[in-house]
């Protein structure tokens, strides 16, 4: 399972009906605007990530969906039902809390059974369902333990099982892996994906960790200052960021500022202060006019660093001096200082174990990138 991702893209089907709809939703706390006229569609079966820095409004958005906050304006719909005035305990939505929020005075099985009991499910069915959930998260042996006797990872699993037990239409996960260490986090990410896949449930995850969002999500909504900046698949977010904020927030990026000179053979020519010749960028979707100020975004791994001058006529050549070298094992990071003082970040995969005469500190180097390696961001 998991190796082949389904061709799943209801958002590109104009006839598909979204499961969750935020329509022009605003949330104010006093004078502060946490969510600002936001509209968003989430489809059934999606693994959806709300990504953004702290204070961007992603948690407020999720809490409105769960029913802990009411929108100041706008409506939220789930299926065909408007959620206005529906209290949290009547919503077919369950949440896995950041702190886990396990009831400390109840054992693991009592915690998982709590929601089912509220529905008045018969005892034997509750027991069956609790057993099923414990198997799903592989905690059968710990059923009678109390939360204080569990490790951080185990608590996370109980919180997940408890939220899943009621088979909600939507599962909300608030920074689900925040408390785990790096290794466990990665494992749990894949487990969450498997569980979501298996149950076919809609997951909405809030996170500030872009790696987590990239790994798990079908689509990511990047938020900033209460607004959604871009909603797209992880690949699109990384390779075709819509704004400079996204380019900088998701992954590392080099930003080169300049002005549009014109278009030649479908390629944009941008004059910058970093090189004599204008830079050539292949970004046909952008609609630009001459003289417009733009930023060119190039990911570090899409730049090439070399000691020998490139052949004459090569495009996008920058020259500089090696300022810093960071060896990370799988990658080496070069920080190259251009004549203008800007520092570029260039990475190179360490494909072989030994390199003869490697590039050293203070060396003069050439940095090049292909026209289609860069994205033009309108300033």
């Amino acid at each position: 399972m998991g190796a082949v991702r389904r061709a799943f893209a209801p958002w590109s089907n104009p006839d598909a009906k979204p499961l969750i709809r935020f329509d022009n939703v605003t949330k104010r706390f006093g004078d502060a605007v946490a969510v600002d006229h936001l509209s968003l569609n989430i489809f059934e079966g999606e693994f959806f990530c709300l990504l953004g820095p702290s204070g961007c409004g992603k948690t407020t958005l999720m809490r409105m969906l769960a029913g802990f906050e009411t929108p100041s304006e706008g409506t939220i719909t789930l299926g065909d039902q408007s959620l206005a005035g529906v209290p949290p305990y009547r919503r077919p939505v369950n949440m896995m809390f950041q702190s886990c929020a396990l009831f400390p005075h109840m054992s693991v099985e009592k915690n998982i059974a709590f929601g089912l009991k509220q529905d008045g499910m018969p005892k034997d069915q509750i027991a069956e369902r609790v057993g099923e959930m414990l198997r799903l998260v592989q905690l059968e042996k710990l059923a009678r333990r109390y939360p204080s006797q569990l490790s951080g990872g185990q608590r996370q699993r109980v919180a997940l099982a408890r939220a899943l037990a009621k088979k909600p239409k939507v599962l909300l996960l608030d920074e689900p892996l925040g408390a785990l260490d790096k290794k466990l986090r990665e494992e749990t990410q894949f487990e969450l994906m498997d569980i979501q896949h298996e149950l076919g449930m809609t997951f909405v995850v809030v996170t500030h960790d872009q790696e987590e969002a990239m790994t798990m999500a079908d689509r990511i909504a990047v938020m900033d200052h209460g607004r959604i900046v871009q909603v797209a698949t992880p690949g699109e977010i990384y390779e075709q960021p819509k704004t400079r904020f996204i380019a900088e927030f998701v992954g590392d990026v080099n930003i080169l500022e300049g002005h549009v000179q014109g278009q030649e053979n479908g390629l944009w020519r941008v004059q910058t202060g970093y090189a004599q010749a204008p830079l050539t960028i292949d970004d046909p979707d952008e609609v630009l006019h001459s003289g417009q100020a733009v930023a060119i975004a190039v990911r570090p791994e899409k730049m090439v660093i070399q000691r020998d001058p490139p052949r004459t006529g090569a495009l996008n050549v920058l020259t500089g001096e090696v300022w810093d070298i960071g060896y990370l094992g799988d990658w080496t990071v070069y920080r190259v200082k251009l004549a203008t003082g800007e520092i570029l970040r260039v990475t190179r995969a360490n494909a072989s174990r030994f390199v003869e005469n490697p590039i050293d500190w203070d060396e003069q180097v050439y940095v090049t990138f292909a026209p289609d390696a860069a994205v033009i961001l309108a300033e």
Partner: protein
Amino acid sequence: MNRRLSLFNVTSLVIGFAFLYLPILLLVIYSFNASRLVTVWGGFSTQWYGALFRNQALMEAAWVTLRIALLSATLATVLGTLAALALTRYGRFPGRTLFTGMVYAPMVMPEVITGLSLLLFFVAIDLDRGFWTITLAHTTLTMCFVTVVVQSRLMTFDRSLEEAAMDLGAPPLRTFFSVTLPLIAPSIVAGFLLAFTLSMDDLVIASFNAGPGATTLPIKIYSQVRLGLSPEVNAASTILIGIVTLGVISATLLSKRSVLRKAH
């Protein structure tokens, strides 16, 4: 975290605790004194305990005190818990400043003022002084202590537990009874015990509000003490100290056991 304990620290702890416990210890020892003179040792005897139990007036006062303490502590626990909930869960409601003022003031206000003001109130509404006036007075004083004890627990309460319960389908009232209440229960019990002890112990407020029908144990002891030391009072004190010590120890053990049960 292990800190170093200097000689000075150890000395101040030893002297400090000796200062706290020696007077009580002496009182207990001299309650078994055969001599009628409280400060002169005349051999071991339990005669004063016998005398104590034959002292009808004292026994009656003890019974009244116990009933007042139970009733007022129960009332104070309910009122104090409600007040603590109001202070932590209701944000800024109208008159909140006055409310917090009324909660904190009785705790530090000299008892003579509280006692006098309540007495004048009861006279004004023409309520006969006795069992009920003392009970009402004690409820008013001790509910403030319960409020503070429960409030400080609610302050550290993780609200996401309540949100989780609601998220899982429990309406507010059921959330309160199945999640909030069990978790703040230890502080409510502590508040009750505090209220009970304060009521059992109070002399000043009870003196103002006692009537011919009801005299409490502290009032009785106080009037005997004013006449001079009495070995009977030593015996009564020893019994009270014994009850309190046993109560505190068993409460500690009980809470330890429930902690252990959850930790293993």
